[in-house]
């Protein structure tokens, strides 16, 4: 089943903070990490990245690895410069109020149905 970022945001009730045009991005898998070095080294193109980190370099790395979107957990809201950078790079940022365990579990289910 082909899942888009939009599918995930709607099914989980995640807030789309920017780049709604790019929510058509196909989600090819998922990656969970709060260590940017780890994502830099191991994430794959098209994956949706679930993290609690919300600073500028998150966007740079999501762009570098051509990820489909970034999902922020624990209700984390990034600063305006981060949203601006995400818009520049075309990386959708979604925010969820729940904990990572639940959000990741649900995304996994959607991708593996």
């Amino acid at each position: 089943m082909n899942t888009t970022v939009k599918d995930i945001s709607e099914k989980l009730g995640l807030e789309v903070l920017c780049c709604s045009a790019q929510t058509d991005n196909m989600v090819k898998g998922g990656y969970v990490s709060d260590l940017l070095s780890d994502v830099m080294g191991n994430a794959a193109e098209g994956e949706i990245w679930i993290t609690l980190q919300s600073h500028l370099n998150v966007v740079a790395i999501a762009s570098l690895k051509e990820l489909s979107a970034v999902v922020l957990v624990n209700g984390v809201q990034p600063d305006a410069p981060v949203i601006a950078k995400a818009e520049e790079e075309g990386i959708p940022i979604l925010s969820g109020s729940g904990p990572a365990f639940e959000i990741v579990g649900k995304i996994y289910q959607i991708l593996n149905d």
Partner: protein
Amino acid sequence: MPVYRADLHIHSVLSPCGDLEMSPARIVEAAVRKGLDIIAVTDHNHTGHSRLTREIGREQNVFVIYGVEVTTSEEVHCLSFFDTEEQLEDFQEYIDLHLPSVKNDIGLFGHQVIVDRKEQILEEIQHSLYPGIRQQITAVAETVHRLGGLFVPAHVDRRMNGIYNQLGFFPEDLDADAVEIFRNANRKDVLQTHPELKGYQLLKSSDAHFVEDIGRCTSLLEMEDLSFAEFEKALKGLEGRRVVQE
């Protein structure tokens, strides 16, 4: 005992985040302008500008300490200072051995270039200097000490890459020589929140990425003379040498 004004945390153009104007020549020039006695260029995971900065510093009476800001596997930033070129080279070899290989993207992270005293580009570092090396913080500290250097966790109270944010605590078995706190932090507040830091000399620096920021925050070191031996004593708070609390 004499006191010396030091800025021990400065990024040159070699760091991906370092501004293009941060050449060794301009860094030393700024140090002179701001009345700094001691500086250290501490680029992310690279020591490529240390030698040239020291050379130029020598010509202009600025004592340049060899240094680097290494990122551990836990993504904690740590300043490491060395006395000799040999020690510095050995540490660079250690970093290179454990740095993951990710190609740098200039548009996303910035330039990583080594320049000469005329600011001509000599080399562009292709692999990203941003990630953490595949070594945990205690291993990094051990290596720094084995090579005869000084190990100082950087901006410990800062949210990004500070030890408290990354680890949640200051490891009891971590052998730090001194500790750097964030330039905007209040020493008293930091010690109140983290009483375990009371035994350390607390350093403050500019963490400058732009020329105008050099010396915006400094440490005053009380020591006998401008030598690495005295610098070591001041950082460790030994024999009356210390970081003056201002």
